[in-house]
């Protein structure tokens, strides 16, 4: 297994956000982490990336505890912009290249070229959307074992969504796994191998996407709407 979460619990103050999460993700799959706002998707992702300490349980990435070795294997796209806007594009690329052994400089320059972003451009003069695309290009230019993408298509127009999805699908390494959280199920449904439904900090479904569709006779989007009906 590439990712294993065992009895993971996390609270913010008195509020329990993750309640005894048990999860196993195999290699070479595209996995959708689906749930309503505040269901615990981002918290789970942050725990896997070591950005939040655990209250209980453990997370293993390719058999390694969260730490330096696990971070070498994960390429993470957060739901916010983490790039220093005072830097130039080439400085950011050098930064990634210096710290990630699996970072492909040629690939990122090619991806940025498609977006008409130049090496000497400053991030401060780029639009928010452009910075997000640049961040995605950086993340997808690593030959990582696990790509974790938190709401990669959140708040963008349909054309940009298509660009983002294409960039993800065309650039992830064969044999690696993508864990992607989103609300926009209909946009990504066709590419998902596995789906995880999370509600109120608990995993309510974790199954093969095709099996779920054939068993219910419905699309994943429809199953989601049914399961999470208010």
């Amino acid at each position, binding site marked *: 297994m590439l990712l294993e979460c065992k009895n993971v619990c996390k609270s*913010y*103050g008195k509020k329990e956000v993750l309640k005894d999460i048990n999860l196993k993700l195999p290699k070479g799959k595209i996995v959708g982490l689906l749930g309503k706002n505040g269901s615990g998707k981002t918290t789970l992702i*942050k725990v896997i*990336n*070591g*950005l*939040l*300490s655990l209250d209980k349980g453990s997370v293993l990435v390719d058999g390694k505890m969260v*730490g*330096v*070795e696990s*971070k*070498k294997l*994960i390429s*993470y796209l*957060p739901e*916010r*912009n*983490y*790039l*220093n806007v*005072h830097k130039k594009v080439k400085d950011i690329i050098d*930064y990634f290249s*210096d*710290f*990630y052994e699996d970072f492909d400089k040629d690939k990122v320059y090619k991806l940025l070229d498609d977006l008409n972003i130049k090496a000497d451009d400053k991030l401060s003069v780029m639009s928010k959307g452009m910075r997000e695309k640049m961040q995605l290009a950086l993340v997808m230019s690593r030959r990582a074992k696990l790509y974790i993408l938190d709401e990669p298509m959140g708040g963008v127009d349909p054309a940009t969504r298509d660009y983002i999805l294409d960039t993800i699908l065309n650039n992830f390494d064969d044999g690696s796994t993508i864990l992607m959280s989103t609300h926009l199920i209909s946009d990504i449904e066709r590419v998902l191998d596995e789906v995880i439904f999370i509600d109120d900090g608990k995993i309510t479904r974790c199954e093969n996407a095709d099996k779920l569709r054939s068993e219910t006779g419905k699309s994943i989007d429809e199953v989601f709407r049914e399961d999470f009906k208010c």
Partner: protein
Amino acid sequence: MLGKVLKYDIKALSRYLIPLYAVILGLSLMIRFLSLFDDVSIIAIVLGLMILALVFAVGFSFLLTGIFNIKYYLENLFKDEAYLTHTLPVKKGTLLLSKVLACVIIIIMTFICVLFSLLIAFYKEGFFSEIFKILGESYAGMEIYKFVLYMGIYGIIGYLTTILMVYAAISIGHSKSSNKIVSSVIWGLIFYFGIEFLNLGLLFIVMAAEPSFIMNLENNTFMMSDLLNFFTIFMVFIAILGGIFYYISYRFMNKRLNLE
């Protein structure tokens, strides 16, 4: 990895420091230039104002250096940028050590800048020989250069401990689920008053253990070495506190990181 992290930390801090150094060195150059015409009354007034500005800039430069360092620590390890910093394949200890080393380096850089600016503004022929003469002299049984060197080391340790105290307060405050800044400030105040209280306690202990020191001070018969022994106790104490704050910062970043 430490070298790489340190390189980027220094680069990031330079963004704040270069304008500060430019202002200090620019003022010095202006003072040097205007001093060529100080027999004109209006220029003499401007020169006086510029000297005043330089004194303020130099005085505040070490405070600003500390503020920039703390701002960078907060942004790089606990704000949006932290999502990248903490997902780098780098140990938390390396991230923290790099911040501390960067702090030492920028203090030295600021010191060099201040020294240069003062030389540019006020250098006169025979200045160095005069300085070396003073430094070579003895006072109360000790060469002055030794005393200056000692106080320099004491200053750096004290400065670093203060920075580490703020690091520790930020690290604890940001492990909370809400009111992170308020919590950091409260912890900073607790540490500050705690240190003051402990310093006072240590002073009483030293006085009680070595009453002859106070008597010597009153009789004007003290030796510099007595004074240094007195300071050494506080220097070691402050260094230990610095180590404790370093450990607290590391522990909270490593075990209680909370980038909610």
